[in-house]
């Protein structure tokens, strides 16, 4: 199986850039963006298997961005993460995606969820 292409979107650059590097070190092909517009631009150039989106971002939030990206690349799967974890957020995200994580989360937990969402086993990578 080819390497998974992952798009990370979070308005906190210091966080999202480090996370992208860590995922790359684990054999994924991860790119990152700090806004919805930048993410849309990257998605128009590359077909991502998975997008990991922050729920709360200025201008274009994670849920709206997911809908926009879905129009460009319908096959892309999604994981949401957030620093808040309110019930309302949880309800919305549960309807939009099968995975919802609260920051900070250990990298192993994120990787496990990536495999789960993609329907893969770590060994199959």
């Amino acid at each position, binding site marked *: 199986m080819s390497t998974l292409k992952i798009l990370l979107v979070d308005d906190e650059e210091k966080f999202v850039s480090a996370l992208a590097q860590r995922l790359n*070190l*684990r054999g994924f092909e991860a790119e990152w963006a700090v806004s919805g517009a930048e993410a849309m631009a990257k998605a128009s150039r590359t077909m991502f298997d998975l997008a990991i989106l922050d729920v709360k971002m200025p201008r274009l939030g994670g849920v709206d961005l997911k809908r926009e990206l879905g129009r460009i690349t319908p096959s892309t799967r999604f994981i949401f993460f957030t620093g808040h*974890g309110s019930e309302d957020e949880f309800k919305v995200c549960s309807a939009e995606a099968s995975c919802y994580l609260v920051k*900070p989360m250990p990298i192993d937990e994120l990787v496990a969820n990536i495999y789960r969402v993609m329907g893969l086993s770590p060994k199959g990578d």
Partner: protein
Amino acid sequence: MSALRRRLTSCLVPKFLKPHHRTLARQGFLDYRSLWLLSIALLAVVSLLPLCIITAIDYTLTGRVAGSEQVLRTVRTASNARRTVTYFLDERRAVLEFTLREETYALMKDPEHLAQVLRNMRAGFGGIVDLGLLTEDGIQVSYAGPFDLQDRSYKDVPWFMAAMEKGAYTSDVFLGFRNISHAIVAVRGETEAGRPFLLRATLDILAFSNMLTSLEAGNSGDAFIINREGVLQTPSKRYGAISQAAGIPVPEFSERTDHFITTDRRGVEVLVAYAYIKASPYILCVVKPTSEAMIGWLQPRIDLLWLAGISLVVIVTAIYVISTYMTNAIYDSNLRQAQVMERMEQTGRLASIGRLAAGVAHEINNPLAVISERAGLVRDMLTLPGRKTGREPAPGLVDNIDIVLESVERCGQITKQLLGFACKIDLTIEKLDLGKVVRGVLRFLEKEAEYRSIGIDVDIPADLPPIHSDRGKLQQITLNLVTNALQAMSSGGSLTLSARLDEGRGVALRFSDTGCGIAPEHLSRIFDPFFTTKGNHEGSGLGLSITYGLVRKLGGAITVESEMNKGTTFLVTLPLAMEEQRVNAEDIVG
């Protein structure tokens, strides 16, 4: 019986005199003692003042009426006596005048004839001692009586001169030639030759006196006659014998019977009813000490005072009971109000702290994520096979990075707890056996208890009815309270979990430990978030506040009792079946 005792206690015992309930004291409620005293004072004034005024008026008026009654009665006695005495004197005078018209001077000049006239008078009227016939020169030419007074001269005697001048005269009591107290009644006549003469009779003083002593003048009353100089004309029980000064002032002349109050020579205040006897020098007196005159008023006065006293006691008792009952009712009502307010305050505080905590957690989670990922990246660079530089990292570097990551993870756990605090989570209501749920939780903690020699007793009756509640919440509540109890006991001790059906409220689940207890000043704050008495790193201070929120969410209540160094008991009361509406309404905090 206990309800009656409670009601009686509520009427008789002022609860509010004890130091105020801390809730009431803190919320600055009324000064119940002052309220109670003010109520007693006001009620006493408005009810006792009229009673006192009416009693005083009644006392005075009744006394005055009784006094007037006594005066009237004494005056009436004097008036009756006056009529008797006047009649006695008029009758004697009329007898003499009748004799003058029936008899001639010549006949009466014969002492034998005069003696016959005297006998007739005594037989017909009485009250006459002797008779005498006096010429205009004052010589008693004829005498009939027990004394030897024939031919005596009365020329210069005052009564003779007065009788000759006035035509009829009644004398004072005097000794005279016989040297015995007596009084004279004399009338003037004319001889056949037209010369004046006097027919005189000596009055029987004894008959006179008996007439007065027969009067009803009361036990210490006295009736007697004085002359215009205040000299006794009849003997008196208290004021002396005939011819002695009576020792009371001579009353002013009055046509009618009158009275006055004076002090006699013994210093006793007396009521004197008196009457001037017409055509005589006599004044009739009836004397009574005023103290005796008021004796008839004594019993009504005692009755009145008894009535007033009993009324006073009844009114004061009623005022005390009413004031105590009312103030106790206000106190109880305020206490309930204060407790409700305190609960609302507690709930509101938890809600705001929950919202604040969620906000803070969110703000902290983002920088924590940066630290986590940056530190993780450094560690990856040093340890992952694909990025090894060939040089070994400095000793301890990876360990230090791991410490940073562990700390971040711990912070993450705390912020997640905080987020959970404000998070509404749906309830799943099912039929539960409380005993099974509790025992299931205890299985997780049995090893720790055993290791620390702490005995756990479970006293949950098998016939306890099942409850409809949320299993997860119930497990969490039990876990939190049992963990809390185990932490309160250093080594040894015992924890008892018991459950009983609490009629009308549901099921009461009790967690009693023999641990260190909670200081009284901490009791009111133990359900506050972040309040902990444990060391800086041992507790987040969220366990009991989350437990509180969970119990409220299940529609129950939690209370605590504790005594330092003896132990703590948490009492969780849960409804047998949860009301859907209530669940929603209570969904405020986590």
